[in-house]
């Protein structure tokens, strides 16, 4: 077991008139080296759940354990460390930083680790090469096509060699061919012993044979696995 949630609850604007419960007591177990998909309509709480698991925010109540470590009450500094070492993120809108090159974007998450620039650059170039975008290493990211930007985003997610890849609606802005290419890449990462967690309402994702388990999230409540 790599990730475990027990009665995790997330409330926004607690105690105010606009209080909103985004997640109601979520219990979830995510196994290592598997592909898990959380599906559900917009506003069902998928992104909130991913941000709790990815150590980007804390639950209002309940417990989250990652790699056998309780993280719900960790101070920000340690939470960031867990986030950097454990997770690689693929965002819905790619979230690449404009104005700098694809190579710099890939290297960025590892800058604070204090790794030597030359070795970091080599690893980043190897990743870009692995995903077939090495010729675009020195191109500004705003000049990349959708598929190239997606691959640069995946390379960035892998720069810190994380245990878990977290992807939020990764195919939302991709056509069918690119979406299938993405699934194929995830399959290769799974084979390389990465744990993958995807939030998506795209059938191309949750119908894919590489997916081991699919959960349905509705109105902040997790239903039994449908796969």
């Amino acid at each position, binding site marked *: 077991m790599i990730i475990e949630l027990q009665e995790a609850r997330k409330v926004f604007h607690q105690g105010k008139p606009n209080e909103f419960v985004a997640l109601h007591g979520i219990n979830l177990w995510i196994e290592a080296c598997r592909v898990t998909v959380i599906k559900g309509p917009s506003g069902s709480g998928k992104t909130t759940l991913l*941000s709790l698991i990815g150590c980007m925010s804390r639950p209002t109540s309940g417990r989250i354990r990652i790699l056998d470590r309780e993280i719900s009450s960790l101070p920000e500094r340690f939470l*960031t460390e867990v*986030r950097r070492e454990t997770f690689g993120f693929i*965002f819905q809108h790619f979230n690449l*930083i*404009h104005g700098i090159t694809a190579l710099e974007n890939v290297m960025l998450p590892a*800058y*604070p680790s*204090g790794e030597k620039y030359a070795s970091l650059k080599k690893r980043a170039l190897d990743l870009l090469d692995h995903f077939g975008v090495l010729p675009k290493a020195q191109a500004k990211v705003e000049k990349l096509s959708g598929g190239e930007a997606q691959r640069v985003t995946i390379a960035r997610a892998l720069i810190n060699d994380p245990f878990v890849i977290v992807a939020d609606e990764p195919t939302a802005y991709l056509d069918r061919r690119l979406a299938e290419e993405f699934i194929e890449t995830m399959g290769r990462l799974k084979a390389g012993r990465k744990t993958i967690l995807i939030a998506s309402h795209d059938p191309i994702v949750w119908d894919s044979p590489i997916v081991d388990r699919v959960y349905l999230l509705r109105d902040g409540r997790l239903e039994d696995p449908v796969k």
Partner: protein
Amino acid sequence: MGNVVERQKNILDFTLSSLLRRRRKNLALALVYTLVVFLLASVMFFAYAIKKEASLLLQNAPEMTVQRILAGRHSPIPISYIERIRDIPGVSSVKGRLWGYYYDPVVGANYTLILPETEPPEKGTIRIGAGVARARSLLVGDTLEFRTFRGEIMELEVREVLSPESEIVSSDLILISAEDFLALFGGSHELSTDLAVRVRNARELPTIALKVAERLPDTRVILREEILRTYDAIFNWRGGILIIILAGAVLAFIILSWDKASGLSPEERREIGILKATGWETSDVLLMKFWEGLVVSLSSFLTGILLAYFHIFFTGSGLFAPVLKGWAVLLPEFKLIPYLDPAQIAALFFLTVVPYSVATIIPAWRAAIVDPDSVMR
């Protein structure tokens, strides 16, 4: 340790490429910043160097000058007073001095005529300051006409043009012989303009001044220290006037830099969110913003200081010399000897670099403490 240095280097590297991405905004900011530092540093350098130069020149002046006062005004002093001062214990020498002003209607300028203490010019000749030579296009061997107190024309031959080393005081100077001085202005050999008194021990100055005032109640005593204080006050006052004028520019700069540096654009906020989401700590973001502020402010500060140094000590303070140098008609063209006061540079540094760096850090901190999941929405 290696990790810490590498971390700093990596973050600095990203900071520099960030600055280049917002080239126009940062260049505009650096330009205004440099201009403000340049103006303030120019005033400071000028006032300090000119005061220093004046004090160095006065080092050779007598510690005490005695003038005769008639009806509250300065009037020629009898030579006989020399003996009465020389008797005072502690006085080492007393000399009568002859000096005065001459208005030249041809160029509308005032000259200062002095009989030098040593090596006076021969009768019929003069040595002139560079400003006088320039104003009247005089070379060695030319003659300069004066109208005496009797209305007669007196021609004196230029024997030497004084070295421009300390032109600020010698620009309008004419060194003249005692005979020619008396022929030009009248007076007699029994009278001097004032008396230069030198003493053996500077600590005794106040006592000796008191005794002079007691013995010769129709005189006033001027100490060199008082002249120095007057110079200081005048140049500080002029520097102050300029700084007040510049205050408007400084204020505009503060508003501009606060707006530019402190107002994070939505794009910058989004970037900070991405950095945090991908594993940067709040402290990493703050470090980046700190470097960003330091790079802009320190480079502008150093450029401003260097430009001001060049302006004051190499181009003769072209921009505001007329205000700072004074009201003399013959504006001296001179090069100040570079004197810098480290305390003033430090003050300028703390008044410009530090506030700017703080202005960039606070909004970045506000953005950096936001939960990184904001970037996912």
